[in-house]
């Protein structure tokens, strides 16, 4: 189906484990983003990508790793999960900001 999909929708993991959140879009959009949403903070940018093999840090990149070997996929990896990374994570994609960006449905991650 066309669109932007995130998986899993819900994830519980233990402190210190590695976990990867997946994001897939079918539009061949150039730009892709990862945000985290926390109460009182709105959405904060973790990493973004302007094209395949081009990534850059956002506002809160520490503890996260991204890759973009294919245009349609933009996985986010927490190398060693911490409780402070408990959050809702949103992926977004778009052709450029003049058109706005489309968001996925989010992944709710709990680190215990």
């Amino acid at each position, binding site marked *: 189906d066309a669109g932007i999909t995130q998986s899993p929708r819900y994830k519980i993991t233990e402190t210190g484990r590695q976990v990867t959140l997946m994001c897939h879009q079918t539009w061949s959009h150039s*730009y892709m*983003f990862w*945000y985290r949403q926390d109460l*009182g*903070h*709105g*959405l*904060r*940018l973790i990493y*973004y990508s*302007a094209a395949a093999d081009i990534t850059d840090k*956002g*506002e809160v990149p520490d503890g996260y790793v991204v890759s973009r070997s294919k245009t349609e996929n933009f996985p986010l990896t927490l190398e060693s999960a911490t409780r402070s990374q408990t959050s809702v994570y*949103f992926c*977004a994609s*778009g052709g*450029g*900001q*003049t*058109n*706005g*960006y*489309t*968001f*996925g*449905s*989010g992944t709710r991650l709990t680190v215990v």
Partner: protein
Amino acid sequence: AQSVTQPDIHITVSEGASLELRCNYSYGATPYLFWYVQSPGQGLQLLLKYFSGDTLVQGIKGFEAEFKRSQSSFNLRKPSVHWSDAAEYFCAVGSWDGNKLVFGAGTILRVKS
């Protein structure tokens, strides 16, 4: 770097009443401005955007917003609120030299019957 302030964390309005959600931005040049809406458990949906031209922009679901450069504001308005408008609303600003958006903390809208 750009930033966004949404002064109101919560707003409650009666169904049928008018609505205005405030948004102030900080950016040195003409910004790209957006309003998104998020229903519970959902992702964000784009309501409207501004990057040039007419300062009053129309969006989906009967919303509009007005860009006021002198006040660094981009307030969202709706003349008559429906119960289905209850959600969280986010203002966001982008920059001409980048393509990433910075979001405000959000305003939760409650609609009472």
